Structures are given as C-alpha cells and as structure tokens.
C-alpha cells in the first residue's frame, strides 16, 4: 500500500507542504475580521494534519531517507532538509497535537470573546507547529538554529497572550531568559560540530568518535541547550510557570510537542557518535531519574491545576531521559536487551506522553472554562455537571499514572523489563535499583493525579464560581476524545506501539534492531494484550453489575462525603492541599511548602486564615539569588547606559575609530 501511495505522491513532499500550510494557516486571519480567520486557520490546520499524518507514517515505515536541498544564498553551506524515520517519528505528535489544539481553540478561545488576542494567538500557534515540523527535518546547523529561534519566539508570543496580567509577563521573561540561555549553548554546540566536520551540515549517523575531549564538550553543550528546552532538572525553571500561564491548547502544544523537540535534539546528537562512553549513559540516567522523582514530587505539592500538569511533564521527560540513558549504557556495554528495552521504552513514552498530556491540558482548559479558576482548592463536584469531560480526563489520569490497560503502563513496563533483566546480567546489576525508584515515581504520580481528579471532579463545589458549570461543546470534547481513544488503543494493543517505535529505533541502533530481542519482547507484549483485554472485560462486567444492582435497590441521596453528618458543607471537605500534605511533608527538604498557619488561642479561637504556597525551589533558592549576585557585581556596567544620546554616538564613533586603527 505504501508503495502505491508513494507512486501517487511523495510523502516527504506532502509532509513538508503540510507543515508549510499549518505555518501559514493564521495569515488570512490577520487581514480578516476575527471570526472567519480562526475558522480558516482551523480548517487548514486540520486538513494539513490529515494529509501530514499518513505521510509521516509512510515515511516512518519507508526505511529510507528523503533529502531535499533548499536553495539559499547564505554562506553556511547547502541547506539540506531530510526526513529519516527518526524525523518522521517526531512529526507524528506535531501534526496530531497541532490539529487537535487548533480544533480545541474554536471552543476554548473563540474569536468572538477574544477579539484583541485571537489573531496573534492563531498566527503564532500555526508558526510554532510549523517551525517544529521543519526543525526535525533541518540538517544544516545554521538553518536548525534559525528554525529553533522561530519556535522559541513563537512559543513566547503564545505564552504572553494574556500579557495584561503581571504573572504572565513574569513567566514570559523567565521563559525568554531560559530559552536563550539554552540557545547560547546550542550556538557553542553547532560551532564545535562545524569545527569537527568542516561544514554546518549535521554529521551522518555514527560518523564521529566519542573519545576526544571535544566530543564531551559537544555532548555537554547539547545537553545544556536541548535539556533546557526539554525541561530536564535543573534546567526546568521556566517550565511550570510557562505551561501554567499559557492558554490551555498552547500548553498542550508546548508540553506535548515542544518539550519533545529538546529530546529530539538529544536523540539526534547521540546518533552522531559511535561507541558512546559509559559516562554519557550514566549521566543521562541519573539526570533522568532525578528529574522524574523531583518533578513528580513538585507536582504533588502544587495547588494550581496546570502547574501540577507542568511538573508532571518534567517527570515524564525524566522517565524518557532515564530510558535513553539506560539504552546508552546498554550500547556502551554491548548489552543488547538493555539497549533495546531502554530505547523502546523511551521512544514509546514520548508517543504516550504526547497523547495523554495534551489530553490532560485540553481537559484543564475545559475545567478552567467551567470553574473560572486554576486553583484546585476552589473547585469540586465538576464530575456531576460535565460527565463526558470527567470520563475523558479520567482516561488521561490513569494513563499518566502508568496503570493498565492504558498506554502509560506499556512504556514504563518496557523500562521495568529492562531494569529487571539486569538481575541476570553479568555487569551493572545495580541498574535494578532503578526499578524501585521508577515505582516510587509511579506511586507519587498516583497521589498527584488522585488529588487532581478528586478535588476537581468529585465532592461538592468549594466556591461559587465552580458551582454550576456546563458541559463543554463538541469542538472541545472531540480532540480530547481522539487522544483518549489513542491512549486506549496503545494500551490495549501494545504491539502496535512496539511496531511504531521500531523504525526510529532501527535508525538509532541498527545492530540491536536486528537481534532476536524485538521478537522476544513482542511475545511478552502480546501477553500484555491478553491481560489488558481481561482487565477491560472485568471493568465492563463490574460496571454492568453495579448498574444492575443500582436498579434493584432503593437509592438514597445525601451530600457527597457527608460522612453521616446532618449539615455537611463544602468547607468541611478535604481540600487538595490537605490531601497531599502528608506526601509533601516527606519531601519537605526539597519542596519547602510554606504554610501560614494561624496560632490558635483560647477556647473559642477567632476566625483565622490558613494559606499554603509551594516554592519553586531551584528557581527561587538558586537561580534568582545567582541573578541577584550577578546584577550587583555588574552594576558598574549600568553606568554605560545613562540616556545621553550623544555619548551613545560616541561609543559607536570610538569603536569605528579603534577598528580603523586596528586595520593597520
């Protein structure tokens, strides 16, 4: 079928054209009245994605690389665009999430209600998606950096959509500083690469040796630059506030896809080198598991719905990085099963995260629409009024916690298999210890998302705003439904996931892909398929039985979680913060949740307030003080900026003069 398709039209060209169409989708809207422009953009984006997705799938399974050369006049060598299976693999979430988010924005950010901001939002949204699609095709370092900047800046403009709010502007500034610090590292990275290879074209797979010191510097620069975009600890500082303050479909795009661009960079860099030393894998593993653990620990402490989701993104990126690190360890020590399982787990988790995280972020958009706040302590009881959203959101939360029969379980299962396989290995047996750590991460994720789901959807409303919400329109539910179905599909049929990652994995390490292990673990995943089916069947049976019992007996209604009291009020419910307090107290050394408790005196204490505020530890304890020190020690430089125009001219004049003297 693929060959027939290729005869009709080259999928690579279809993918590029789809990317360009998505990028220009917002342009008509700039010249039209707000309403139709958004509709045109959405229709264009959805159609382009419908063409782009099959094209990307065809490219993924084509086992070949399509190369194009862009004619440009810049002095940085030829500008190659190429789509190999690794690029095609990353194209899938880009097209999917772009279309879903665009559809969602019709209901979430309608032009009629947001006349001032809708145009810019639609335009930059398309630009962001398109730049990411072109990014994974770019094979020239300079072109890569250009597209990277377009991506970073359009994300900034999306993020500051509600720039009249102070906290949004602050989040924007933090993002801008973080992303440009990362870009600075990338400038070093591409310059060093160009020094190594003699041109700005990215090196071919396995063409560089990892032994010289410069290779280590290149790897460190790549980790700093791409890691800052991916949000690996401690480079994640921009992530929680940025994801929390952007419009929800933009958060979905940033978390579901943009973070993956950082991971793509790391993956791509690792393909350049043959025989990576053990150190690299070890470093990535440690960084990954730390991110996972701390990310989810921070997530547990959050009381802002979207911040919680953002912190859980750090956790998921951490899991992917752990998988990648373990795979590298496997490659370095010629341990094929470890390499296979680590890499398959990492790649599959990328797909999974780009399915369930957009689902949850879009769901958070619906919730914020309904309740008018992001504060979980003020919500409650939404499940009664919006059952469909609640169901879809539940699918997302189960998936993200890694509970079968959903997709999050499959990728983590592969990682667990890899860790436990080390029990029989001759070397590096200590990697088994990662299994309990990953289990701890899973457990904390379960706490965080139980807190999220129960405080938002269950119980009774804790504030007036959340009291009488309405179900979301179809344009908002449909994208969520698609994500939920895909989550369920990969969860129920894990072999599909395995086949999806196989080509990208083969591009990464051909020697491992040819071994018996893919088939062997395919059998195990097949058993998982049976188990998932059994679980689903059991769930359906229990539901039917419960319905049947419900019809048999008399049903009495009482207030939710009333606990038998006569006059229970919403104020008596456990709040989200109360639910997670115990778990947070375990990590108090890192999270430092500030709780302002009133001092109770006398027999009848007066009314008092209790408030809690989770700290951004890395940002507030390390980065901000460092910036303050830098600001103080470089204060003398500010004298250069004094507002005297003619002295500014003098600066230019003096520079010119020195240059002229220098020329002699």
């Amino acid at each position: 079928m693929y060959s027939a398709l290729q005869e009709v039209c080259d999928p690579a060209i279809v993918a590029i054209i789809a990317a360009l169409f998505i990028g220009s989708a917002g342009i008509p809207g700039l010249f039209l009245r707000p309403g139709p422009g958004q509709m045109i953009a959405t229709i264009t984006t959805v159609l382009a994605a419908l063409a782009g997705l099959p094209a990307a799938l065809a490219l993924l399974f084509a086992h070949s690389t399509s190369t194009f050369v862009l004619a440009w006049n810049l002095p940085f060598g030829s500008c190659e665009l190429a789509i190999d299976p690794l690029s095609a693999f990353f194209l899938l979430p880009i097209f999917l999430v772009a279309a879903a988010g665009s559809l969602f924005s019709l209901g979430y950010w309608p032009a009629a209600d947001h006349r001032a901001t809708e145009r810019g939002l639609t335009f930059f949204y398309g630009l962001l998606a398109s730049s990411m699609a072109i990014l994974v095709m770019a094979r020239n370092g300079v072109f890569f950096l250009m597209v990277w900047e377009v991506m970073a800046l359009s994300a900034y403009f999306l993020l500051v959509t509600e720039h009249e709010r102070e906290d949004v502007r602050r989040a924007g500034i933090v993002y801008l500083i973080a992303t440009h610090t990362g870009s600075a590292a990338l400038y070093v990275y591409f310059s060093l690469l160009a020094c190594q290879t003699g041109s700005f074209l990215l090196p071919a797979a396995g063409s560089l040796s990892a032994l010289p010191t410069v290779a280590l510097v290149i790897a460190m620069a790549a980790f700093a630059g791409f890691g800052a975009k991916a949000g690996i600890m401690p480079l994640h500082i921009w992530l929680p506030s940025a994801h929390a303050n952007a419009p929800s479909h933009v958060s979905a795009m940033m978390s579901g896809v943009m973070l993956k661009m950082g991971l793509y960079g790391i993956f791509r860099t690792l393909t350049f080198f043959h025989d990576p030393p053990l150190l690299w894998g070890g470093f990535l593993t440690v960084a990954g598991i730390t991110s996972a653990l701390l990310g989810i620990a921070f997530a547990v402490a959050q009381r802002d719905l979207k911040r919680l989701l953002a912190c859980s993104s750090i956790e998921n990126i951490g899991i992917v990085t752990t998988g990648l690190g373990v795979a590298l360890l496997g490659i370095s020590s010629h341990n094929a099963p470890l390499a296979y399982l680590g890499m398959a787990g990492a790649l599959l988790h990328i797909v999974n995260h780009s399915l369930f995280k957009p689902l949850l972020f879009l769901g958070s958009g619906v919730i914020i629409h309904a309740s008018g706040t992001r504060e979980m302590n003020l919500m409650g009881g939404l499940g009664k009024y919006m059952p469909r959203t609640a169901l879809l959101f539940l699918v997302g939360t189960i998936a993200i916690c890694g509970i079968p029969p959903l997709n999050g379980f499959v990728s983590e299962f592969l990682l667990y298999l890899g860790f436990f396989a080390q029990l029989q290995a001759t070397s590096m047996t200590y990697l088994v210890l990662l299994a309990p750590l990953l289990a701890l991460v899973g457990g904390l994720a379960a706490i965080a998302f139980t807190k999220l789901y129960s405080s938002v959807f269950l119980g009774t409303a804790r504030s007036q705003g959340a009291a009488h919400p309405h179900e979301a329109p179809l344009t908002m539910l449909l994208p969520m439904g698609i994500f939920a179905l895909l989550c369920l599909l990969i969860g129920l049929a894990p072999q599909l996931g395995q086949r999806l990652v196989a080509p990208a994995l083969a591009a990464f390490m051909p020697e491992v892909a040819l071994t018996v292990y893919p088939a062997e673990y395919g059998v195990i995943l097949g058993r998982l398929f049976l188990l998932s089916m059994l679980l689903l069947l059991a769930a359906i049976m229990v539901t039917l039985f419960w319905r049947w019992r419900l019809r048999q007996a008399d049903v009495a209604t009482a207030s939710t979680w009333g606990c038998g009291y006569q006059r229970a009020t919403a104020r008596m419910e456990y709040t989200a913060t109360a639910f997670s307090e115990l778990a947070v107290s375990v990590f108090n050394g890192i999270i430092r949740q500030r709780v302002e408790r009133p001092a109770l005196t006398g027999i009848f204490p007066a009314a008092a307030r209790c408030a809690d505020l989770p700290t951004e530890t890395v940002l507030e304890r390390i980065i901000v003080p460092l910036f303050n020190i830098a600001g103080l020690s470089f204060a003398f430089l500010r004298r250069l900026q004094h507002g005297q125009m003619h002295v500014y001219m003098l600066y230019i004049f003096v520079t010119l003069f020195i240059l002229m003297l220098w020329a002699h």
Partner: protein
Amino acid sequence: MITFADQLLVLVLLINFISLGTSRLMFSIRAVAAQGVILGVLPGLIHPFSWHLVGITAGIIAIKGLIIPLLLNRAVRSAEIKREVEPYLGYVPTLLLGALFTALSFGFASKLPLLAEHQNYMFVPASIATLMAGFLILTTRRKAISQVIGYLVLENGIFIFGLLLADAMPLMVEAGALLDLLVGTFVMGIVINHISREFSSLDTSRLTSLKEE
C-alpha cells in the same frame, strides 16, 4: 572630468566644516542641501552617460537637495528654534577636531588596499572625512535637529564611497539607500515632534529621564 570631480569633493569637505562650525540651523541645513546637490552631480562626472545615471542624479538631487531640507526647514520653523546654543563641545574645538580627522582620513585612505584606478583620487579620503564629520556633529550637538543634520552628513559620506561602485551598483540598491535615508529622516522628524511635545524642548540631553532605573 576626474579633476573636476576632485574639486567638487574639496567643496564637499569645505561644506563639512561649515556645518561643523555654524550655530545657525537654517544655514547648516542649506549647506547640507548644497552638499546633496553636489553629490547628485558627481556620478555624472565620473561615469559614462546612461539613462540609469540620469535617474540616479535626478533622484539624489530631488531627495537630498530638496525634499529633506524642506522637511527640516519646516521642523525648524514649527519648533521655533534658530540656533544651537550650547553644544557639548564648542565650535572652535569641533572645527579643530574636524580638521584633525580630515587629515587622519587622508592618512588612513593612503594605506587602504584599494584598486589602482581608485588610488589617486579623493573619493575615499573625502568619504571617510565626511563620515567623521557626521559623527562629530552627532556626538557634540544637543538639539535633535542638529542630530538629523549629522545623520545626513554621515549618510553623504557613505554615499561618496558608494560612488566608486556606481557601475556595479544596481538601481534597486541605490533606490533602497535613498529610501532608507528618507525614512530615517521621517522617523527623526516624528521623534523630534514627540521630543518637543513631551519635554517642550528639543534638547536631547533631556532624554536621560527616559533611562531605565
């Protein structure tokens, strides 16, 4: 013809000194307009006749000799200032510095690795000297209008350098450069308007209050 061009360039240099040494803004503007007209004539002297050249000459004389001076005149009249009263650096020191820089630019130009056919003419030193004069005006004057004049002189210096390349320069590039100049003047005009409205004076030293604290 080349020697005549050299003599015109001497005139250009002299006009530099006029704009460096005068305190009357109207006079300064007229001097720069004259400089523009001379620059408009110059390409006709050094390159063989072509319609392309006629277009360039007409464009330059129209923009540099007429439109921009008219705009500046209007600005001077509407802002009701006649003189640059207190420059940062007095007129005599500015003139001396101008002379010094002109001498230096001749020295510098003789050391540049130029083509043989450009070696003996005054184009390169005159260009650098005019550029320097522009910079001097920009750095030593207080009034926004004087700064525009400095900018124009600077631009003239760059233009003289471009004359050497006029054969190789396509029309689009020149049109672009002229447009750039015109837009620059417009922007400065708007800036001048806003400065005088905000601070009720055209003194750019007042702009320090805009500095970020």
